[in-house]
Every structure is written in C-alpha cells, then in structure tokens.
C-alpha cells in the first residue's frame, strides 16, 4: 500500500512541485497519475520510489518511509519495478544483460536468473532479441525492454513514468496491455501519463494533479456506466490553467 500524508515538495529554486497531497493507493490497484506538464506527476512517482525526498508530510510504501534509513532504501527499491520515460538502458550491454541487472543486484544464481530473464523477455515479446544491443531496438521495443527489466525480479509495485510517451498508438496499446496483465496477477501499478486514451482499456483509477495539488479523482470504469469520459474533465482542469 502507498500512503501519502500531506506530502509537499519544494525545490531549492523555490518552485513548489507538490502541495499537501494526501492519497492512498491500495495493493493491487492500477492507478494513473495525470495532469499537465509541471503538475507534479513525475515528482510524485520519484517520492514514492525514494528518488527524491519530500520537504513536508510523509510517504509510506508498504509501511516504510523511502526517505528513512539509507540502508533500507535499496531493499525497498528491490520490491519496486521502475519504468523510466527515458528507459535508462545500458547501451553497452545486450538485451539479456540489461534485464539480468536487477537479479545480479539481488545475488540470484546465474542459472535460475537466466530462466527468469528469458521468461521476462518472453512476456514482453523480446525473447528473440536477447543478444541484441538496445540501440538496435525500436522505441517501443526499448520501452518493452525497460518493462522486462522492471518485472524480472517480480516486484509487488510497478511505477511507470510516461511509459507510452513518444510511441504510436499500436505500441502504446501493447505497453498498456503488458502493464494490465501484471496488474491482473496482483501487482500494484502506478503510471504517470498524459496519454489517458491509451490507458483507457486498463480501466485505471485516475488521479489528476494540477499545479502540484490533487485536482480530481475518477475511476475509468465509470465510462462503462455511461458517465462519459471520467478523466476528460480532469484533462480540462489541467488545460484550464
């Protein structure tokens, strides 16, 4: 479970990215954080992952404060799968070695690790490219590779920052389908995105941010009940500014 209690983030420049956000994301949820550029989406994900520290309030992931002990943070991160907007792939290593990195970090035996890596690559449809270098992959394939690396150690929480950015509709749908399949087996998925259209089929809980504040919350499933575009007003709120 992710709990944010009156969380604020102010940078040294004085810019206030988040203002008193209180929010709970339950285990097994598929949540989408949306909002305009600069609304604080990525900052929120960074606080959950312990990449940045909140300047006020408290963040708890599975009851643990990512800003707490420095020695506990790596262990927390091993329970999280991170999918980055810029992929953060190691371009001098093969697809296989990129995916194996989290297993190396946890000290997985090489033979068992190889099985897991191939299973993860199979899941994202990249098994045939395991010897390739990331630079030879398309944007969509790189994003899938990033997902394979994020799920290979079987995390209970997936955090994805703009996973469908710069992808065409077909690739974006593939990515969302992969994320949804993990959510269906109980993994909590939190995605920050502008692209609510691609994520519609995952029927996520939508959390909209505007100017660092919680602007709107909706459930995409309401669309099925005829309440058209529960997240559209959210987008308009963001665009209104």
């Amino acid at each position, binding site marked *: 479970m992710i709990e944010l209690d009156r969380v604020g983030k102010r940078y040294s420049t004085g810019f206030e990215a988040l203002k008193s956000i209180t929010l709970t994301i339950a285990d097994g949820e598929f949540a989408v954080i949306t909002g305009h550029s600069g609304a604080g989406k990525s900052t929120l994900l960074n606080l959950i992952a312990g990449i940045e520290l909140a300047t006020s309030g408290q963040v708890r992931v599975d009851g643990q404060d990512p800003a707490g002990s420095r020695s506990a943070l790596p262990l927390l*991160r091993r329970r999280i799968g991170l999918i980055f907007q810029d992929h*953060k792939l190691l371009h001098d290593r093969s697809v296989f070695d990129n995916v194996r990195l989290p297993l190396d*970090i946890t000290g997985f035996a090489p033979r068992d690790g190889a099985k897991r890596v191939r299973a993860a690559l199979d899941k994202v449809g990249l098994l045939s490219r395991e010897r390739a270098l990331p630079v030879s992959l398309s944007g969509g394939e790189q994003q899938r590779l990033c997902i394979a690396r994020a799920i290979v150690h079987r995390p209970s929480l997936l955090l994805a920052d703009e996973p469908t950015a710069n992808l065409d509709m077909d690739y974006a749908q593939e990515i969302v389908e992969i994320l949804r399949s993990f959510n269906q087996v109980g993994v909590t998925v939190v995605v920050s995105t502008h692209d609510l259209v691609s994520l519609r089929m995952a029927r996520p809980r939508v959390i909209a941010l505007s100017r660092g504040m919680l602007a709107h919350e909706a459930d995409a499933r309401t669309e099925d009940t005829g309440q058209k575009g529960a997240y559209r007003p959210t987008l308009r709120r963001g665009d209104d500014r």
Partner: protein
Amino acid sequence: MTAWLIQHLRAIALTGRQVAVAPLSYLFQVLVIGVTIALPLLLYLTAQNLERLAGQSQADARIALYLAQDASGKDADLIAARLAAHAAVAGHRFISREEAIRDLKRLHGIGDLIDALPRNPLPDAFIVRARSTRSADIEALRAEAARWPKVALAQLDSAWAARLEAGLALARALAAGLAALLAAALLAVTFNTIGLQVVNRREEIEVSRLIGATHGFIRRPFLYTGLLQGLLGGLAACGLAALCVLLVNRQLPAIGALYSADLMARGLPLADLAAVSLFSGLLGWLGAWLAVTRHLWRLNPR
C-alpha cells in the same frame, strides 16, 4: 551458493572483463605502480645489502696496536698481559717487527726494496680482536689502548664501517620517507584511475542505484580492480627489484675481486616480497574505496 558469494564472484568476473576490455592500458597502469614501488624498494634493498656488508666488516673488526720504536720486549709482555686480562678483548696476537717485515717481503714481492733499507722500519704490533661487535664498544677499546704506555698508534681497521653505518641509517630514513611519499602517489594513481572508471560507468551506477543496488554492490567491482591493480603493481615492483639485483650481481664479483672480497647482492626474502605485494594491494583497495565513495557522494548525496 549464497547470494553474498555470487555477488563477489560476479564482481570478480566484472573486474576480469574490465581488464580484458583494455589489457594494454591496464598493463601500463600496473607498470606505473610497479615502478613507483620499485624505487623505495631498491633503496631499501641497497641499504640492506650495505648493512650486511658493514655487519660482516664489524664482525671482522680488528684493532692494530703499533708499539713505539723504542718499546722493549718487556714492554710488549706488559701490553700482552693487559690484553689477556681485559674483559673487552676476545683475543690477541703479537706480531714482531721481524715477522712483519718477513710477511711484507713475502706477500708483496718487494724484498729487494726492503733489503735496501738501512734498518727495519716496522714496529712490533698486536692484533686485537674485540669481544663486542658494536662499533661504539670497539672504538672505546681502541681509545683506551691508545693511551697505554709504549703504544704509538691504535688503529681500528673498520673505522670506515662506522661511517657507513651512519650513512645507512640516513639511507634507511630516506627509504622510509620515499616509501611514504610514493605510497601517497600510489594512492593518488589508483584514486584517479578508478575515479575515471567510475565516471565512465556513471550511467550504469545510476541505473543500478535506482533498481536497488547498495553502495557495497556498486563499490565491489571497483575495489577488486584496485586490489588487483595494487597486487600486480607490487609483484611488478618485486620483479623489477629482482631484475636489478640480478644485473648488479653480474658486475659485483669483478668489483669484489679488486678488493679480495666476495661481494654478492641479496634480494628480498619471499616473506618480504609477499608483504610488499599485499601492502601495495591494500593501497590499491584503499585508493579505489576513496574514489568510489567520493564519486557516489557526488553523484547523489543520498
């Protein structure tokens, strides 16, 4: 196999891969470290060998007591009695002036020249062997004997050894100082080398941190690299020192023959060589630790 062991094996394998990527560059780094350590090591070896040589000379230290030309046989007997009773004297031998001139003729082949002299110019003499091998004790005995009646000159044959010993003390101090300076240089070399590797692998470090790598996990391959670099550098230094000893020993017998001495330089014993390599490895490890810790802190203070 535990996760701990797997991670160490992985770090060692990664170190091996790093070396394999640029073996020539690694070889030169090892050579730089080797030469750096070889300098104080050679100075130390030189001091050790000279000390051994001086020690041998001290052991052979003899005081020659030359009696006055007018000393009688009775005077010589009195001095012999004093020497026999002296606690600091291990033994003595009387060489009469006649015996001395005979030896001079026999050993140096200048009989005709000596025969041409109007009288025997050599004095009676005693060769005294001191009980102690310490230069201060020997010098004290010499000074005391010089004051005895009818002793014209008391000469310590190994007086040069005392001067050499003082010189050696200076050389040892210099070797220690140079070793400390060059240890700092080795630390700096490793710090910079590993620091560059950290910068080159900055992206990998950042990604590893984000997906749960501890500082220990990130440091490990660099520490092995530093340790290996230091160890190999230490071994290279020992190899260079051994080579120098070998080269010197090709020349020394010829020089020794000129002084009727059996001169051979000795290398360091195996235990000392192992200690030098381990110390160098330790410095490599420390330099790597400092470099990675500094860079980790600079990359992200958290």
